[in-house]
């Protein structure tokens, strides 16, 4: 037998209209829920993008290019020689990598010791190109005193406030960096404090310092070489594609000794985990919220089924199969949820867009600084609108509508026709 979907849809729509008040009430909860869903999704995405942006700018970028051996050893001997670096930079300039590269930061990283007359501390020393690094990193914005490194600086160091205090230094003070150089010898380098920063991350404030790349190269006997090239992209969504394309190009040009293009997910696994956990808790919250909304839908649809038991009896007497009766209920539930869900999403989108499109200031909700994965966060969250999220939201709502209508549909299917007719007198 041919089954006319349009018949079912028409009946469903008219039934919803007949119980307009009940339908509207359920729709309202669905609209509010969907609006909240989409709001929290895009705000969550905005928050995560901000986490990622801040974190990668304090670390190695969305993508970092390094030798696979350096990834494991973090030792200077596994650095990227000047020729490789030039080849990579050439490839980056040529373009053709999907996504937009905002900044490239060549860095020479070494672990060593910073000492002054007052003592010595372990230090993470980063040789950087001052101009490029200022565009790349957030560290220059965390300035406390003095200034960030400038092109032309030589014996200059930009030092964390914790290290500064531990070594009893002030602006202009000299101190000595000691580390194993490229040849494996212990080498010392005198530098002077030109600026200090406070990130709020104890670990960074206590041990991190920037010096000019040229100084680091000369000191460590590997001028022109770097340990990694950091890439800052327009946003984190561009990472997977850019990474694939870049890795392919690196493999082509460097063969088996290929350099690695490492994404932030790999270089900052704890951030990756945090984003996933946060997403999960968001989903969990949505799950609970929508379970409640779903109960409302179950109630509305079930009520409508029970109220129309006779009608379903008649329909079945007229030749509607139990399955068709069930699908009538399902369609009713789906129309209700998908329609109101779509309205809710549109509402959530526009409200977010108009009210907080420029950013939502959460500073009043937070005490002090909000540090996360070693990065201090901007309390202003800029929502992030993505088509994928809308689709995801709609699918979720569709699923909820489906699940919520399932039980009422089952009830409609199991209606005892003779029984419903019994009470007609």
């Amino acid at each position: 037998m041919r089954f006319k979907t349009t018949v079912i849809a028409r009946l469903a729509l008219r039934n919803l209209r007949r119980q307009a008040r009940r339908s509207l009430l359920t729709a309202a909860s669905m609209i509010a829920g969907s609006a909240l869903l989409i709001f929290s999704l895009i705000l969550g995405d905005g928050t995560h993008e901000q986490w990622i942006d801040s974190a990668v700018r304090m670390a190695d970028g969305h993508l970092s290019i390094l030798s696979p051996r350096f990834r494991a050893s973090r030792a200077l001997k596994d650095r990227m020689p000047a020729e490789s670096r030039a080849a990579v930079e050439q490839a980056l300039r040529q373009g053709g990598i999907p996504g937009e590269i905002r900044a490239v930061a060549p860095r020479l990283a070494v672990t060593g010791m910073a000492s002054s007359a007052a003592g010595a501390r372990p230090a993470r020393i980063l040789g950087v190109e001052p101009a490029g690094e200022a565009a790349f990193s957030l560290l220059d914005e965390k300035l406390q005193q003095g200034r960030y490194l400038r092109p032309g600086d030589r014996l200059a160091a930009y030092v964390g406030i914790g290290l500064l205090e531990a070594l009893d230094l002030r602006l202009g003070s000299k101190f000595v960096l000691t580390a194993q150089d490229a040849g494996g010898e212990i080498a010392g380098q005198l530098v002077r404090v030109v600026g200090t920063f406070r990130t709020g991350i104890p670990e960074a404030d206590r041990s991190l310092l920037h010096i000019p790349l040229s100084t680091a190269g000369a000191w460590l006997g590997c001028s022109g070489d770097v340990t990694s090239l950091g890439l800052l992209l327009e946003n984190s969504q561009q990472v997977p594609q850019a990474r694939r394309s870049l890795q392919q190009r690196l493999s082509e040009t460097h063969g088996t000794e290929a350099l690695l293009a490492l994404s932030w997910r790999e270089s900052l696994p704890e951030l990756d985990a945090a984003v996933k956990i946060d997403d999960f808790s968001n989903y969990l919250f949505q799950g609970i919220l929508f379970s409640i909304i779903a109960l409302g839908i179950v109630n509305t649809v079930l009520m409508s089924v029970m109220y129309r038991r006779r009608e379903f009896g008649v329909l079945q007497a007229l030749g509607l199969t139990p399955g068709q009766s069930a699908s009538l209920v399902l369609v009713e539930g789906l129309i209700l949820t998908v329609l109101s869900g779509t309205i809710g999403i549109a509402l959530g989108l526009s409200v977010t867009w108009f009210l907080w499109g420029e950013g939502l200031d959460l500073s009043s909700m937070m005490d002090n600084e909000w540090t996360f994965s070693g990065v201090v966060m901007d309390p202003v969250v800029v929502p992030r609108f993505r088509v994928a999220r809308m689709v995801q939201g709609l699918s979720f709502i569709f699923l909820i509508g489906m699940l919520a209508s399932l039980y009422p549909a089952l009830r409609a299917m199991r209606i005892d026709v003779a029984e419903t007719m019994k009470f007609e007198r």
Partner: protein
Amino acid sequence: MGNPALQTEAVWKVFHQEAEKVRAVRGVTLTIQPGEFVVLAGPSGSGKTTLLNLIGGLTRPTDGRVWVDGLELTRMSSRELARMRLEKLGFIFQSYNLLPVLSALENAEFPLLLRGLERGQREHRVRELFQRTGLAGLEHRRPGKLSGGQQQRVAVIRAVVGEPALVLADEPTANLDSAASDILLTVMEELNRDLGTTFLFATHDSRLMERSRRLIHLVDGQIASDQWQEPRRES
């Protein structure tokens, strides 16, 4: 051709109500040929409605067998029963039971809609029946805007529109005044005469009994009498 419109063979229906057995239908054997206009009469609780439900495939018999147009219901799945109802049976209920969200026309054509007939075919057939039953012009009213008699005539159209082998009508006149009942009965008689539609009524309305050609009395779930008679002409 050649199949009786309805045949039952020693049909029993036993309900269990609070540890008490209620034997609603007790071994009814009955045959109705195409074109018959039969009234099943009996007092309340005599088992008329239960028998009708058994014939309609809405209730499964405890024992015995039922055929509609040669198809044995007792072996059918609920899907097959639904299909059988759609293709072989028409129902008329005491309280009309039109779908309130559909117009008179939509209600009437509903079985055709379910069978997947094209709009043109449906309309042609339904409009003709609206003419024939004196409902022309009321096609687009919702059931709530029709009188009881009009609603029941729409229900009659719905029952016969698919040219079923058998129309089951349970107390079709019970909610109608005598004028409306008369009109309805006349409509059904004409349909029986002109289209050859087979009707089986369950009723204790004497006017309806008088106008039947075959009157079956049901007492305590058993056939007490089954007689042919000369129907009383319309007054």
